[in-house]
């Protein structure tokens, strides 16, 4: 299994590989906010992780006593959302029964077929009817819907991994090098601000000049242009900021506003000034329930409290194979499934 996945991934690493090109074309036609550049980045980044040794180390010796049919509802907000779930389910020997978002209906089924994973895909109703465990990723409404569906179909709560809505933040103090500033731009802008790992809030020291960071944002957008729909959304946001006289800065495909730590629409990043690190720590604590990750330069990461899941700047859009959404180990959850329903 690990070898088959690694071989398929190696083929998909090549942008010119015909099946990959076909999938890219089909994916870009779906009603999502993927751009060709961001999609290519995501595929290459994810595929590069799938080496047999890494997969082996990730799964280790963990196996369930008895296989289950795991219904997996994947989000379609960023490319390849749900790939980790797919791999974890099949590598642990469960039956994977997936329901993909209409926003990204092709990527997961195509890769599963290429690697010969035996994964099955169906509509939501069929998945609920057949599943005896579930993994659901989506909004709060999706989570509420999944809770009622699981209860309706007699799936115990402990057999459901329901991920909540969340966002990420960054903390900067002005000592970031050019590479770290570029990393921040990628963290915030790559997938138009979508996805729980994308930076929605930037805590910045109050004396920090904005210009070097804006320059990084502009440089990033020169390589990764914004999706055409982003412009419309940001235009309305910018007009409102102007009307409300909220300090803001914008460029082609990005918008920053200065104010309290309230997440804005995707692509609109909130710049939160702080005086001392205690302000940041208090702010992060207030957002703990919704905060997926916090990104900072390595020297600053060490000063953040242990309860904050911190990663270096530039890591948001490059999740490791073993990363744990909401701090929950997906493999451990799947390995613990023992009795049906």
């Amino acid at each position: 299994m690990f070898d088959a996945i690694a071989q398929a991934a190696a083929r998909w690493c090549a942008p010119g590989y015909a099946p990959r090109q076909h999938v890219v074309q089909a994916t870009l036609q779906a009603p999502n906010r993927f751009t060709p550049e961001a999609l290519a980045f995501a595929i290459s980044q994810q595929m590069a992780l799938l080496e047999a040794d890494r997969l082996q180390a990730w799964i280790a010796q963990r196996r369930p006593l008895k296989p289950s049919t795991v219904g997996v509802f994947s989000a379609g907000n960023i490319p390849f959302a749900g790939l980790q779930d797919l791999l974890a389910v099949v590598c642990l020997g469960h039956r994977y029964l997936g329901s993909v978002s209409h926003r990204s209906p092709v990527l997961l089924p195509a890769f599963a077929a290429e690697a010969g994973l035996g994964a099955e895909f169906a509509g939501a109703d069929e998945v609920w009817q057949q599943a005896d465990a579930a993994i659901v990723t989506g909004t709060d409404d999706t989570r509420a819907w999944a809770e009622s569906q699981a209860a309706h179909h007699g799936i115990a709560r402990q057999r459901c991994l329901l991920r909540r809505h969340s966002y990420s933040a960054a903390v900067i103090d002005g000592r970031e090098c050019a590479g770290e500033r570029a990393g921040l731009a990628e963290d915030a802008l790559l997938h138009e601000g979508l996805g729980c790992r994308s930076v929605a809030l930037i805590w910045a020291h109050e004396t920090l000049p904005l210009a070097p960071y804006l320059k990084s944002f502009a440089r990033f957008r020169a390589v990764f242009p914004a999706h055409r729909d982003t412009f419309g959304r940001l235009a309305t946001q910018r007009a409102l900021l102007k009307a409300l006289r909220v300090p803001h800065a914008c460029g082609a495909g990005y918008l920053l506003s200065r104010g309290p730590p309230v997440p804005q629409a995707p692509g609109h990043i909130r710049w939160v000034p702080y005086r001392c690190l205690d302000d940041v720590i208090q702010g992060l604590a207030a957002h703990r329930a919704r905060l997926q990750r916090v990104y900072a330069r390595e020297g600053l990461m060490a000063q953040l409290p242990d309860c904050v899941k911190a990663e270096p700047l530039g890591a948001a859009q490059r999740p490791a194979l073993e990363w744990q959404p909401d701090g929950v180990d997906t493999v451990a959850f799947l390995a613990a499934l023992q009795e049906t329903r």
Partner: protein
Amino acid sequence: MPDTLSRQLSHDDIARRFTGCGRAETRAALTRALRAYQKAHCGVYGRYEYTYLPIAAFRQAAVACFPPEKAVRVFESSRTSEEAASRHYVRDLGLYDRAIRAGFLPVFGEGPFTLVAHLPGYAVQSSLVYMARRLIEWYGDAASGFFLEDLEVLERAIHHSTASGTPLLLLGAAFGLLDLVDAHQWVLPPGARVIETGGMKTRRRHITRPALHAQLADGFGIPCAQVWSEYGMCELLSQAYARGGSVYRPPPWMEVTIFDPEKVECPLPAGTPGVIGVIDLANVYTVSAIMTEDLGVERNGGFEVLGRLQQSDLRGCNLLLGNV
């Protein structure tokens, strides 16, 4: 002609005339005149370069064409952990009263009704509580009133309505009503109507509107056709009602358009879900054109409400919307 009319109209004319704008041309003229007045007198709206002001503005600034301290009432929405409450500065409560009456009468009639309201989680400064109080004053009989935990108010109203033949109207927040039917099986008198006002102030759980109506009909012992819905919000002075179904019909002075959330004020065709934009001509002294944070779809000449467009929907991925 309409342009001439709109130039002649003052905002006070509009305040007097808005409920009578049956013709599309008249409404268009009123809309233009009101927009010109509001762009000139409401600072936030004057600086906003488009037509439909995002509702978020009401959470972040005083949206009014007059000094906010001169407001006779400030309606407030509920506050969430992440966002401030919306504030609607009302200069003339008479406008709200007229919008409530003129929206209610053609739909429900003059009564009298045994009108009971169940609005758990709503504060006294809520516009919905004000509306319910006024409806009870105007159209309710002696058995009418509010109740929360005191279910004997509802029991007494049911008994009174059954004995007197006065039709029962039960107005309530959707999830408050669901809690009522979860706790008891009720049998409302024949002809009783339940009006759910949306809202999830008490708790959050997923339910579609048809499923909500079916549960309420079952729990109150009435046909589904007698479960109605009301669409209103703190920032608007007018309401739309859905008569025994999920399609809301706005009154003539309230215009609802569904917009593409990804584009600037780009209307969508009937059947395509998007963000609900409203022009409410009763909002004379604030802003009449508002981009809500509700998702909706135009159907059969009216509109359906599909849910809230939250940051979580934008940032995450709402699987439910994909199935609309």
